């Protein structure tokens, strides 16, 4: 078990190195730091200032290590910074990226954790219901509704909800955020609704498929033959076995709770990491964007390891060695 975890982590580290290399190629070799500097500093900047800015942001060094110079180059620096979580300052406004991440994490989690739980809480019972009533009109309606829900762009969900619920019905504030826990519920209601709605189609369909596939297995027939009722069958046998395929999706989603949701956050004015990322995109802020991609990958890799480990917990057939 321990050996497995260590090995799995080791591979994770290898992948992290790969990700960093890719990011390096993408962000250092294919972009011109002068432009980034000019965007950050303004149009009318003397060249000395741009040079100074490049020094401050570490864009002035040679790209690759040479035999005489192993550490003082951008590649090494890139790896060193990313691996030690010393992300430096934003290209756009010189704020410490780490500070920004720390500030953005709270609002992101405030949105994504309830969203995650609600999505599961709505989609799984709904999928169980649909699977339970398979081959009836409830099932067919459920599937059609899911496909309908899947076919609408999330942008339209957001626009529609803001217009209908926010503006016409005045149930919740149209957008915004507050750190006061009493107030935050009001602000989160609408993005949560949109988030759940936009994901429910795909989720229900996926879960239903999994449930149906499990309920066609032989052991379900055995359970029926020993007198097990349908409800108990669903909850005790089908659901428990379905957990294994569901885990891939669910556990893998957990790390991404930290990175927030790009669209929801920026449309609903939630100052989370997603909104920070969108700002970075709009502001040509490559260092922040790079960091966000890196953190996303890191979390994904952790998520994958967690998924593998959780298989071991849920599925007795899997031995982690």
């Amino acid at each position, binding site marked *: 078990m321990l050996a497995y975890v260590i090995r799995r982590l080791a*591979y994770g580290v290898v992948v992290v190195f790969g990700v960093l290399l890719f990011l390096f190629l993408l*962000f250092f070799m294919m972009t011109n730091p002068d432009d980034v500097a000019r965007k950050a500093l303004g149009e009318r900047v003397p060249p000395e200032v741009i040079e100074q800015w490049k020094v401050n942001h570490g864009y002035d060094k040679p790209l690759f290590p040479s035999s005489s110079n192993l550490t003082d180059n951008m590649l090494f620096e890139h790896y060193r910074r990313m691996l030690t979580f010393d992300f430096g300052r934003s290209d756009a406004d010189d704020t410490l990226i780490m500070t920004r991440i720390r500030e953005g994490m709270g609002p992101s989690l405030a949105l994504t954790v309830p969203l995650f739980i609600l999505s599961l809480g709505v989609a799984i019972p709904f999928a169980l219901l649909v699977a339970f009533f398979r081959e009836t009109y409830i099932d067919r309606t459920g599937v059609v509704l899911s*496909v309908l829900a899947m*076919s609408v762009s*999330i942008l339209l969900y957001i626009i529609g909800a803001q217009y209908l619920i926010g503006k016409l019905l005045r149930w919740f504030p149209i957008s915004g955020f507050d750190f006061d826990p009493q107030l935050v519920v009001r602000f989160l209601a609408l993005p949560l609704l949109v988030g759940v709605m936009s994901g429910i189609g795909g989720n229900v369909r996926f879960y239903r*498929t999994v449930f149906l596939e499990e309920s066609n297995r032989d052991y379900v027939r055995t359970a029926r033959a020993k007198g097990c009722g349908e409800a108990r069958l669903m909850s005790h046998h089908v659901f428990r076995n379905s957990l294994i395929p569901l885990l891939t999706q669910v556990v893998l989603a957990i790390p991404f709770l930290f990175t927030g949701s790009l669209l929801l956050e920026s449309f609903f004015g939630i100052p989370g990491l997603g909104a920070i990322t969108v700002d970075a995109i709009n502001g040509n802020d490559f260092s922040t964007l790079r960091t966000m*991609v890196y953190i996303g990958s890191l979390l994904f890799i952790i998520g994958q390891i967690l998924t593998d480990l959780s298989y071991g917990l849920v599925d007795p057939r899997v031995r982690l060695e």
Partner: protein
Amino acid sequence: MESWVVSNVVVALIVVGVAGLAWFGLRDRMWSQALGELWCRRRYSVLVIAFYVAVALLDSISWVGGMEAQSDTVARYKAQSILDRLFADTRERSYSAPFADREFYGGAALQRPGSHVLGTDIIGRDVFYLSLKGARVALLIGGLTSLIAIPLALLFGVSAGYFGGRTDDLVFFVMSTLASMPGLLLLIALIMVMGKSTLAVCLALAVTSWVGFCRVSRGETLKLRELEYVCAARALGVSELRIIFRHVLPNLMHLVIITGVLMFSGLVLSEVVLSWLGIGVDGSWGQMIDQARNELSREPIIWWNISAAGSALFGVILAVNFVGDAVRDILDPQTLRQGE
């Protein structure tokens, strides 16, 4: 070469290709059965998709000239597609005028549906015309990206699965690396770095979407490699390359089709988000939605603009999703989960 010539050549190739495939498919009992089954189950969705494809084709075949009656000199010298010609201003009185200067300066912006079937947008363009033009862009995004991503994924997936060993290790490593980067962010970063163009968007979409199918095809190849008919072929002295082409690839075709169909809707929907971020493809429905988004707050409300683009998008995605479901059921019920 002029872009319209390229477009015409591509259309010709596609038409020939599709005709060839159709001929092959109808001749081949297995595929014709599947097609028949699909037609039985999802007649309307197939018709809807066919309509979109037809519109896209009408918008893809273009040539210069033949517009001398036009007041617009620029249009006279530009390649105009069949669709453009159908909507040209000679028909203004009967229907609508996408380039009509008179209307434009006469204040025809944001007209309600009426003389223009779906109204006009803020600079007086016909919304119906724009929605139809979006079909080509959507198919371009879906098609071009699939055309890049699927062969790439097949190449890597099959070689990794079939040869195993170091090849597999390398492909698996590249896959884990790409897969571990958050998709949308990677997409945005790629487009930001490559610059904004249709090709760049498609390339970036391809880079972010090939991994999923690569993994599926690798897994499937691993399974196929162990099957007895592959073994029998080896016992018959058939070369490895021929085994791949005759025994492995044909048995992945259903996955290719399923993935292609399912990928399409995902790609078109991601383009909408890209459009909102300002890095979408010009003329797409996503761009229309984003352009029309704010008009929704006008009083009285300008709904036709966004709903036309939204419904055009919804229509094709829905049809594709329905067809995708059916295709998945018809071609391979076992791959339900991997297709996700």
